[in-house]
């Protein structure tokens, strides 16, 4: 009876405190929260090294920009108008997908379906 109660209690305790337990086991308690280190953008010669929109806006909204551009290009044929927002353009400055996009995404636990190694169509490997 008491044994059963203690077991039930412990099961719930472990489930509810799992994030704390995992971070304790990893020895992360009291250490700085990790932050992805991203490669700096490098514009090709003759182009100003400035992202397509404000950087803080890009951090939060690039997925919306890319998805809107996709729909506008593929369904409505506005390729010229949305050229600026094409993946092709992103990679002219953000040259290393693994060190930029992927680093951030794996930290956040996101797997965009666009890329070739994830079953999508674009850039099976890092584009140079």
């Amino acid at each position, binding site marked *: 009876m008491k044994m*059963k*109660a203690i077991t039930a209690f412990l099961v719930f305790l472990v489930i509810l405190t799992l994030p704390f337990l995992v971070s304790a086991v990893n020895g992360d308690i*009291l250490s*700085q*929260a990790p932050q992805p280190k991203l490669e700096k953008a490098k514009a090709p010669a003759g182009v100003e090294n400035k992202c397509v929109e404000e950087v803080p806006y890009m951090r*939060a909204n690039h997925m919306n920009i890319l998805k809107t551009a996709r729909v506008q290009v593929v369904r409505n044929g506005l390729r010229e108008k949305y050229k600026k927002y094409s993946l092709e353009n992103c990679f002219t400055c953000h040259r290393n997908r693994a060190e930029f996009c992927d680093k951030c995404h794996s930290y956040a636990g996101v797997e965009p379906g666009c890329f070739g190694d994830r079953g999508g169509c674009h850039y099976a490997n890092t584009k140079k």
Partner: protein
Amino acid sequence: MSGLTLLYTLFAYVAIAVFLVGFLARIWKYATTPSPLKIPLTPAPVNSVGVVYRMVQEVGFFKSLFYSNRIIWIGGYLMHIALLITIVKHLRFFFKTTPAALAWITSFEIYVGFIFFGALAFLFLMRLVIDRTYYLSLMQDYVLLIFLMLIAATGILTKYYVRTDIIKVKQFVMGLVQFRPEAIPGDPIFIIHFTLVLLLLIYFPFSKLMHSGGIFFSPTRNQVDDAREVRHVTPWAVKG
């Protein structure tokens, strides 16, 4: 550290503490409450494997509800599945390296927040339009549904309309998990979402939401129907 960060760090730890202590105290109370009588609801399983099977049906598919009210079952089941997926998708904020399986699940875009909100709205409506449930409904039933709907609505807003910087959010949450506070992202919608969740955590142990832990302790569902084979004795009934 800004005042807002300090405020929310303290608020978060208080909410988590109230939730944990409250929830576990309730579990302890459920687990140690004697069930003096053998009252499994028949037809009942005759061994413990059967009880596990019954519990799986009950917790996994809401079997009793299915046989008693199909309409509410549809709303309730959808709502709970959507809630489960939402919770799983939020787990990525709580672990330093997101497990691959979790990232994979997260990669499916299934608009689960909208399903969650819709099912809640449906359940809210059902409480009002079915005479019987209208009569049975308490203020706290409505309050909880509205609470969850607000959380869903603000979540949908941050996810699809006024995006927030997810990296900053994860930074902040990992700061809490690692006991090294980080700055809270300043987006108002995120802060409202987070505030509502913390308030819900505080209310949780005192509310009907405790059915999430309580269901496992229902005597009519978790007892073995072996009254004729084994004498059922409650420990406190044994005197000298």
